[in-house]
């Protein structure tokens, strides 16, 4: 098909495939991707279409890890480079950076060979006073044996963020070791005489768990805890919420009410706010009250991961740097056994396990970037590319459900690390407004205490990212990066010029004649917007009417509108660029943007004046 400009979609990105009613032109296949791209293939023969459908369904649902792209992906790196890639992000280094081990916290080997908990990593920090006996005892009283361990240590005041799963308290059960474990956490923070226990679930959900012998901490049994519910909904609610929001994004020319009503009805931003509120609460408890916090939900690998990482991001500027953010994901998500395989459906599995948990965290980061534009070293593109690769399975980082499984699969020997890839191309991911000595890059990020619902906005850069036409056509980030790059060249040139000038002046003083090279002609030519441009064409402004037959820019009309966009980005990622840089192609494929007149080529080529009269007559 001519109007599909070599679309390249990884099978792992395919979310759903839908066969639609056959039309005169052929059999349409609608493919929805996990990175929110939607494409429509029109296959002339019904039988071919069915064959493609069947094979795609199979290909989109691999059953063995070995079928995933990362096991065949080869970025032409040798063994040594691959190994270096895997050690770029080093968690033991991260704990050292936090100031550990210290007088209060120690590295425990209790989980060596995953003896206590198979979804935890082997290297864990626990309070010094927590003996192996206490740990093992406590683990038996926690869902899936995920006992309380350190997630983040705030060295300024010794407060910490710890995480675990729910206690198996039922209606009355208690466990001495678990109570001692919480005591130990409290004692590890001499600045405070209590510990917050934050249950991130809605109270009703937590109470329902009691009937199953699970539940939450009874304040009477644990001395000096302050217990708090924060109502973040479960993975099923979140999955449905995203589904509803994507349906809104998919609407063909929706009215403003359709959109806003749909957005509200999806509840998506409410959930984002709930996660943020929990993170803000914990960050405040740690930085302002100096109190340690134990966070859990049910299993302690979804909401707990979201909330701990949001709180850490607010507290520690290191996590707002490029490398620090990779560390954060590595620590709170990958190492603590967030179930990437189940949540993002890498292998064919239970669809009820799928949920956009890390997507929500990534969105929280974006919402924060909107509020604090100078606070983050990375830009929006960085977040989008990470999201893309969580689903792409092109790199080994996000495979499996736990560290244990990854080690068994020998991921590091057989696949490449995304972090090394992102780090190599970091120039593409920098935020030009970030400055290490800026006030926003110091210390804790303070969000307003007054309720700010309006703070949370729809992220069209993510959920409509393949609809180029909807995005701002000129990128301030790219513009400023170009300016900064030129500034650097100017600095170098300035230095060289000064040197030469000095030399010549000296030489002249000595009355010696030296021939110097001609100075180079000025290289500066501004940041011409037409240099890095794409054509900008009018969209469908006639609402539900048939599309306005506009000429596509390639058919003459050179000056229609050439504007700087994200398109000129030298996208470092071959797959991403293939999916994202074809503005017109994407519009045609997606079938959401009626302005690409190529749906009906006959109309486009032939100057059927009557047809566009009809446009206005129906108006």
């Amino acid at each position, binding site marked *: 098909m001519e109007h599909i400009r070599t679309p390249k979609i990884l099978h792992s990105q395919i979310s759903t495939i839908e066969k639609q009613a056959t039309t005169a032109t052929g059999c349409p296949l609608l493919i929805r991707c996990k990175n929110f791209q939607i494409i429509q293939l029109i296959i002339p023969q019904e039988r071919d279409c069915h064959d493609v459908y069947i094979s795609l369904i199979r290909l989109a649902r691999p059953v063995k890890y070995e079928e995933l792209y990362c096991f065949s992906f080869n970025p032409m790196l040798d063994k040594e480079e691959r190994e270096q890639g895997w050690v770029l992000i080093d968690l033991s280094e991260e704990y050292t950076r936090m100031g550990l081990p210290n007088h209060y916290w120690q590295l425990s080997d209790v989980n060596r060979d995953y003896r206590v908990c198979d979804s935890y990593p082997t290297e864990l920090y626990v309070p010094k006073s927590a003996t192996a006996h206490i740990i093992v005892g406590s683990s038996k009283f926690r869902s899936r044996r995920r006992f309380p361990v350190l997630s983040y240590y705030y060295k300024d005041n010794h407060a910490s963020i710890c995480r675990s799963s729910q206690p198996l308290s039922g209606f009355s059960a208690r466990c001495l070791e678990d109570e001692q474990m919480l005591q130990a956490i409290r004692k590890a923070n001499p600045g405070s005489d209590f510990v917050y226990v934050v249950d991130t679930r809605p109270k009703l959900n937590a109470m329902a768990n009691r009937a199953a012998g699970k539940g939450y901490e009874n304040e009477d049994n644990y001395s000096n805890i302050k217990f708090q519910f924060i109502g973040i909904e479960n993975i099923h609610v979140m999955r449905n919420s995203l589904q509803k929001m994507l349906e809104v*994004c998919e609407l063909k020319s*929706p*009215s*403003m*009410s*359709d*959109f*806003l009503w749909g*957005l*509200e009805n999806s509840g998506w*931003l*409410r959930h984002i706010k709930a996660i943020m509120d929990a993170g803000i609460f914990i960050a405040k408890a740690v930085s302002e009250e100096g109190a340690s916090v134990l966070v859990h939900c049910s299993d302690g690998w979804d909401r707990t991961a979201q909330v701990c990482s949001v709180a850490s991001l607010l507290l520690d500027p290191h996590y707002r740097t490029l490398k620090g953010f990779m560390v954060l994901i590595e620590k709170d998500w990958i190492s603590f056994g967030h179930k990437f395989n189940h949540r993002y459906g890498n292998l064919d599995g239970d669809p009820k396990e799928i949920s956009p948990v890390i997507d929500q965290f990534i969105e929280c980061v974006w919402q924060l970037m909107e509020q604090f*534009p*100078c606070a983050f070293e990375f830009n929006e593109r960085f977040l989008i590319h990470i999201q893309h690769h969580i689903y792409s399975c092109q790199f080994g980082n996000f495979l499996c459900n736990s560290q244990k499984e990854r080690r068994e699969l020998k991921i590091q020997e057989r696949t490449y690390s995304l972090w090394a890839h992102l780090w190599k191309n970091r120039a593409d991911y920098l935020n*030009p*407004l970030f400055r290490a000595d800026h*006030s*926003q890059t110091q210390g804790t990020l303070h969000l*307003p205490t007054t*309720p700010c619902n*309006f703070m949370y906005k729809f992220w*069209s850069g993510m959920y*409509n990212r393949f609809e180029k*036409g*909807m*995005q*701002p*056509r*000129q990128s*301030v980030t790219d*513009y*400023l990066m170009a*300016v900064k790059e030129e*500034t650097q060249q*100017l600095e170098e040139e*300035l230095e060289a*010029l000064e040197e*030469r000038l000095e030399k*010549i*002046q000296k030489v*002249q003083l000595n009355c010696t*004649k030296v*021939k*110097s090279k001609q*100075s180079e002609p*000025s290289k*500066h030519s501004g940041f011409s*917007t037409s240099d890095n441009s794409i054509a*900008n*064409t009018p*969209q469908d*402004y*006639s*609402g539900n009417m048939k599309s*306005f037959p506009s000429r596509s820019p390639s058919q003459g009309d050179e*000056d229609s*509108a050439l*504007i700087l966009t994200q398109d000129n980005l030298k996208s470092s990622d071959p797959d991403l660029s293939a999916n994202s840089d074809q503005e017109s192609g994407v519009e045609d494929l997606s079938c959401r943007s009626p302005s690409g007149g190529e749906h009906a080529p006959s109309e486009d080529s032939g100057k059927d004046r009557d047809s566009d009269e009809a446009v*206005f007559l129906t*108006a």
Partner: protein
Amino acid sequence: MEFAELIKTPRVDNVVLHRPFYPAVEGTLCLTGHHLILSSRQDNTEELWLLHSNIDAIDKRFVGSLGTIIIKCKDFRIIQLDIPGMEECLNIASSIEFEVIEDGWHSFLPEQEFELYSSATSEWRLSYVYKGFAVCPSYPPIVTVPKSIDDEALRKVATFRHGGRFPVLSYYHKKNGMVIMRSGQPLTGTNGRRCKEDEKLINATLRAGKRGYIIDTRSLNVAQQTRAKGGGFEQEAHYPQWRRIHKSIERYHILQESLIKLVEACNDQTHNMDRWLSKLEASNWLTHIKEILTTACLAAQCIDREGALILIHGTEGTDSTLQVTSLAQIILEPRSRTIRGFEALIEREWLQAGHPFQQRCAQSAYCNTKQKWEAPVFLLFLDCVWQILRQFPCSFEFNENFLIMLFEHAYASQFGTFLGNNESERCKLKLQQKTMSLWSWVNQPSELSKFTNPLFEANNLVIWPSVAPQSLPLWEGIFLRWNRSSKYLDEAYEEMVNIIEYNKELQAKVNILRRQLAELETEDGMQESP
């Protein structure tokens, strides 16, 4: 009557000022002829200067002898003053509650823009037929009309168009010679009245075999209803070369209510996200934005892509018509995206074209006394410009602050520019002699620097904005201005300016050094050659 006479208590000490995001300030409150001033009489503490004309509504409260006045401003700000002493408090309240009518000290500067603009083509001429505002009070003394139509014919057409507003030139698209004309509705009435001169005027610049589009900013239904009141729309039979398109841009109280609801939603302090979104949706503000922008884009598309003439009108041709004609120019004409060009656009398409600023912007979102002619038509236009600016952040010479400034001055100003409802009224008020123009203040280099977009790179192309709901967010700079701290965003803006300034500085330095070096080298060469 001089306003100063109304001041009963000109000065009160120990007044406490509360503002969002600032610590409370205690100081002396002074009332002058035009301002309410609060000063703490300390160095480096900011003083509050509030124009009386910026006040939209006042609430009074008493606890014991301590009175509190809550002042709600037209720019949506809310401030609170605690005033000791009941009498003082009442006096202050009654003094500032009085509406300032005396505006003789405000000002206006006439524009030569018009002639500059009409010099582009030979098919059009300037007509002075309305000099003295006899026939149509809402038109300026000079209008541009097709050359082939004489003044006599214009007078006839005027009787056929609402308010005497016969079709005039609004915009000439240099690229293909197509134009936008605007007018009032034709007075066809129920019996389908027609006017040969009107048809001739409209067809005057139509190329042979070409077609034009009439964009009626009202829905067909609304347009039909106006026939009963003598209004109407162009019948196809009488205008066979024209295609009519109906869009529905809302007017008057519907817009005013939308603004009131939106500002109320922004001030809602509840914790509930769904409530915020549903209130935002219920205000319909963004729906209006989308509708206006879509219509403007359609108009621009007809001109640029279809190579067609267009005529735009609604009922009076002073509100939605102007929104569409001016936004179409922002899209089509690079000059209107510069500071000077945008000022010229406002002069031409809003002030001279007779948008009744006095009626539309007398009150704002907080005022209880609702007048039926109040409507945030101009604010909607500015919001639409902001939406385009957001999508093309490097294509405008001005920044968001420029738009906010214009909004403020349209509602409350120490300049005469936005006073009155049209040129005729401004003329009668002798504003030019009596007051200063906003532009003469804004265009001082010191002021301009605040309004200049550091990212601007001249872009000579047509810019097509997206009108998808996902692309049209709430204008936080206006509507959440007093509800959230803008500290971090201001810092980011500053950072951006610094990056660009530093780059320019380096360029200048490098250029100087290069020149020096070149000079030295030629000297060198000269020493060598003899």
